[in-house]
């Protein structure tokens, strides 16, 4: 016990905010091992990347405003679609969710910090370099990666521009970062829970990240292997994906989607966790069916490993495989349906109030479910023959990722920001942000369903005249959606600087539940140095 006390006093030596020199200020962030600092770093990286990739989206939409436009060249258009996808997935949603995990998991399970603080520092600091590497391809000779975010072989192997190698190494770094982050989260949840915090008392957010971390551990190494095969195919004479040497380009798709499908659950499971925290708070009820929420996450995670070939229905896989992957995919809607039902039941007869986090959570509930339905349509193998590679797919995954993952992240930021910085955000701006985002989101992506069903293929810089109207609607929506995020940025900065003058209480929300609301707002640099009591 003496040792415990010794270590804890050691931790208490350092408090930030007293650095005098610029160097000390930088060193504080570069060398930090504090979970709150690292969470903040992750979230800011994600926020910056959100505007970078969002800007790319606006370039794409501008080019598609009318047929025959030459606002950007077709070559550059391809680079934009590729980088928009890669950055949104790896640079926005994943870091934001990891940042939330860093901030919240120790607070929610009553731990003083993450289990492996130095590894945590390394996990984060790999990312800025990964994205520098990726974005530097715009400034090199030859085009940046231009084969779509899925970088299918042989487009990315035999025909890939030289910059593809930069992308490969960037993915190696991101993969390493994610794997270390996942190890850290698992180690934290297994070993750092406060006494009395049994697994089935853990908040659903912690549970969702616990499962997600196992998913990451299973798939990121496969992606790393896959891009390494690309690298050796490109430069060292192997033929994993090269038909001339006895390889098979189709193998690439199997490997990629073996990673890629669980990856979409990596992007959405923590979002499920967030929604499961927010809905009970603003319904002033306990979450309905806690156990089933946890089991549903586990079932979804397991099923996610056996559905990857539904991305490959039209590659000529045998009928038996098509049937298997079709049914397996459809079965996922059962645990997902359980979750949606439980969220609705949580709100049922609750004393609802509609603060910004709740608005985003309800928006999530509606629009994510909608995206789930279009996913079911795509899961039907014979129908998919028509939908595949069309704007219908684009509409589907923006409904589940933008109004799914991103909405949940925004909800989480509004929900926990008062806890992080001690001031309330501006509710008025939050509402403006929510409604403009929701209008922009639906105006942009809803019409894409029709475009896709009418046969407009994705990833093209130009289109026949009959698609013009809907494309113009989508472009207008995209600009509303894009620029309304500036309100979000302004609101967050204003809140952090305390310009709203409304101090947050420790509980922040009337219907609060969980350990994070037992510490003062703003959360002190060190929390739970002595474990909290859990009844």
């Amino acid at each position: 016990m003496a040792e415990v006390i010794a270590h804890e006093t050691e931790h208490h030596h350092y408090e930030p905010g007293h650095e005098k020199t610029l160097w000390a200020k930088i060193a504080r962030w570069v060398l930090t091992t504090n979970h709150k600092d690292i969470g903040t770093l992750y979230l800011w990286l994600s926020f910056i990347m959100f505007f970078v990739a969002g800007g790319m989206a606006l370039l794409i939409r501008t080019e598609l405003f009318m047929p025959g436009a030459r606002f950007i060249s077709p070559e550059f258009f391809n680079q934009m679609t590729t980088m928009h996808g890669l950055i949104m997935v790896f640079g926005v949603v994943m870091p934001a969710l990891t940042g939330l995990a860093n901030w919240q998991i120790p607070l929610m399970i009553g731990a003083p910090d993450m289990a492996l603080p130095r590894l945590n520092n390394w996990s984060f600091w790999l990312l800025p370099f990964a994205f520098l590497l990726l974005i530097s391809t715009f400034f090199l000779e030859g085009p940046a990666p231009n084969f779509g975010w899925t970088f299918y072989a042989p487009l990315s192997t035999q025909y890939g521009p030289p910059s593809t190698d930069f992308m490969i190494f960037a993915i190696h770094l991101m993969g390493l970062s994610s794997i270390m982050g996942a190890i850290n989260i698992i180690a934290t949840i297994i070993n750092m829970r406060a006494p009395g915090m049994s697994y089935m008392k853990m908040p659903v957010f912690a549970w969702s990240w616990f499962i997600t971390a196992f998913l990451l551990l299973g798939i990121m190494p496969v992606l790393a292997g896959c891009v390494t095969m690309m690298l050796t195919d490109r430069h060292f004479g192997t033929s994993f994906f090269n038909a001339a040497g006895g390889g098979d380009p189709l193998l690439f798709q199997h490997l990629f989607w073996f990673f890629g499908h669980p990856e979409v659950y990596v992007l959405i499971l923590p979002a499920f966790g967030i929604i499961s925290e927010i809905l009970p708070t603003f319904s002033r009820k306990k979450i309905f069916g806690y156990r089933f929420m946890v089991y549903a996450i586990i079932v979804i995670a397991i099923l996610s490993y056996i559905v990857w070939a539904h991305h490959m229905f039209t590659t000529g896989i045998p009928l038996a495989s098509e049937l298997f992957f079709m049914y397996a995919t459809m079965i996922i809607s059962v645990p997902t349906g359980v979750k949606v039902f439980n969220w609705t039941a949580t709100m049922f007869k609750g004393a609802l109030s509609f603060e910004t986090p709740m608005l985003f959570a309800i928006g999530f509930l509606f629009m994510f479910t909608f995206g789930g339905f279009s996913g079911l349509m795509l899961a039907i193998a014979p129908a998919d023959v028509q939908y595949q590679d069309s704007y219908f797919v684009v509409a589907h995954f923006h409904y589940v990722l933008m109004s799914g993952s991103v909405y949940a992240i925004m909800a989480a930021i509004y929900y926990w920001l008062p806890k992080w910085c001690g001031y309330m955000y501006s509710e008025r701006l939050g509402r403006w942000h929510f409604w403009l985002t929701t209008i922009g989101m639906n105006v942009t992506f809803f019409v894409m369903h029709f475009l896709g069903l009418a046969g407009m293929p994705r990833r093209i810089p130009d289109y026949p005249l009959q698609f013009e109207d809907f494309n113009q609607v989508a472009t207008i929506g995209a600009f509303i959606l894009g620029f309304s995020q500036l309100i979000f940025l302004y609101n967050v900065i204003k809140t952090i600087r305390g310009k709203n003058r409304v101090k947050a209480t420790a509980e922040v929300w009337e219907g609060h539940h969980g350990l994070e609301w037992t510490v003062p707002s703003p959360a002190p640099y060190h929390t739970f140095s002595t474990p909290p009591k859990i009844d």
Partner: protein
Amino acid sequence: MNNQPIDYATRQRKIRRLAMLLGLVAMGMLGFGYVLVPIYNVMCKAFGINGKTNEQPISYNAADPIDKSRWVTIEFVTSRNNQMPWEFTPLVKKIRVHPGEISRIAFFAKNDSDHEMTVQAIPSVTPGLAAKHLKKTECFCFTQQTLKAGESMDMPVLFHIDRDLPKDVNEMTLSYTMFDITHMKRKKNANAGKIS
């Protein structure tokens, strides 16, 4: 179990051990990614699902009976990868055979470039599920071909359709794609993608 606080050193030891274990799991999954390559090839071969034909000669037993009650039409298609400067055409475009009957056909190849080139032809059969029933005793695709500038040759294929061919298959297409492998580092029967 978790009701008692454990001391710092024990917990650090447990964390370190768990982190090591999870690191090993990650390494294992990296290995698994590579193991998926031979698994994929073995599965495709076992179920005959990606239209690939045999890569080693399968001997033909002349004593095996021929199924005279059935006719199967086989069409031959050729293509050149990346518009490589070769002529590559089947000498016969289409034949009709009985299952079990051996046939000999040939493809014409000519190097129209001004330098020596080495090529590898990759076969593929549609419908894919019928691929394993097309059995080759001899094929130019088993080896690589090298032709000097302007040189040409006829390349033979000796094959038969086995009698287990599903009843609903009456037409098959055997296609060859020719790849220029002059600059590929592997010399013989480049199978680097296959660990098996």
